[in-house]
């Protein structure tokens, strides 16, 4: 029971309080680039969530058992410094594998996510979530839940913002504010509204 409460609190914290896009500034490029239309926003977020969970499932065991096992701490066997290089390669390979796999076996999903998959390698949320999970000392299950929460949080931010953006694009703005600058100001307001969730998860789960 205690475990379930902890997992739930991690999940909802990632969506509402520590939202990667609006509170931690990860994945701003796809947030600004793909949030113009609702369906592409949803497609991109689902692809990101999927890769995030897969990447966490792959990198956590590799870091914990191969790169930096507990018995090697402090010795020359500790390869923790290779984290960045190894993780980015794992993510790149994973994305490529996933693309080939979906193309062959789940063509419908491939058609829906296809365009977004190659972009995901350089999406900082993926590398960010794998590194932050280890920094926070989460175990395997907690890491997976955290990754899923981060992905859903990304989805929520993208969907909400694509709605905001549709209204903003119709507004009359000063010439130098046209396009991205006014979008960023709108993002500031969206992010401000998410600050209202601060403390809500702690209050619900009493952690």
């Amino acid at each position, binding site marked *: 029971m205690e475990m379930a409460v902890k997992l739930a609190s991690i999940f909802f914290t990632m969506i509402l309080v520590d939202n990667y896009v*609006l509170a931690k*500034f990860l*994945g701003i490029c796809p947030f600004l680039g793909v949030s113009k239309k609702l369906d592409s926003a949803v497609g991109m977020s689902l692809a990101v969530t999927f890769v995030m969970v897969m990447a966490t499932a792959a990198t956590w065991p590799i870091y914990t058992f191969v790169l930096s096992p507990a018995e090697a701490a402090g010795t020359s066997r500790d390869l923790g*410094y290779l984290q*960045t290089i190894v993780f*980015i390669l794992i993510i790149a390979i994973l994305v490529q594998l996933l693309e080939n796999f979906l193309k062959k076996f789940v063509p419908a999903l491939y058609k829906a996510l296809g365009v977004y998959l190659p972009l995901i390698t350089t999406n900082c949320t993926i590398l960010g979530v794998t590194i932050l999970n280890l920094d926070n000392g989460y175990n395997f299950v907690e890491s997976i839940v955290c990754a899923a929460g981060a992905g859903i949080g990304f989805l929520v931010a993208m969907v909400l913002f694509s709605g905001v953006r549709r209204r903003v694009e119709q507004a009359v703005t000063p010439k*130098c*504010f046209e396009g991205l600058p006014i979008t960023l100001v709108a993002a500031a307001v969206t992010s*401000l509204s998410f600050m209202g969730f601060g403390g809500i998860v702690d209050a619900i789960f009493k952690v």
Partner: protein
Amino acid sequence: MSNNSKLKILTNGFLNENPVLRLVLGTCPTLAVTSMASNGIGMGLAATFVLICSNIVISALRKIIPDQVRIPCYITVIAGFVSVVQMLVKAYVPDLDKALGVYLPLIVVNCIILGRAEMFASKNGVVDSALDGLGMGIGFTITLVIMGSIREIFGAGTWMSGLGSLIPALGADFAIQVIPESIDPFTIMTSAPGGFFVFGILMAGATWLTSRPKKSAKTEEAVEGGNA
């Protein structure tokens, strides 16, 4: 190639092709680390180092790397240099390592570096690529410092606090008090919404500056006024 065009490559990154404000690359670290001006300097220097080194190596290897696998090759080179920076910062400036946190390893996926590798270093010689890396790096650093300064002055009332961890001679609690402590700081500027807001205003300012260069002095005022 004349000296003039070399200078042009170098200064291109300052305003006309400023990586953050004009090309809109590397937005994540720009927003995340600029709650203090000194973090901007640290992040800017780290990214500049990686940019110059990766540009040099990629441009030197541009005829060897096969076209089909160039992106994985670039990322491996970049990740190598990022690991170098990470270890250097951890060893010599541990406070900066704490302040930048996860954004230091995330330089790997900073689109400025991969973008310049793909757009410039893979097509130009070693010297030009190094200059391009330096120019882009300086443009990135300047933008980070300007943004960090605006957010820090309005959000905390101080300027350059934390610079002591970069330059030990200044002492650990070095800070310039800009707005007197009796006035409550506008703390929203240092949190997430302030970041988006200042970034939007600065980007509008840069658009204005590049589209009508004669009225540059007036634009500066507008940027300041927009934040007040």
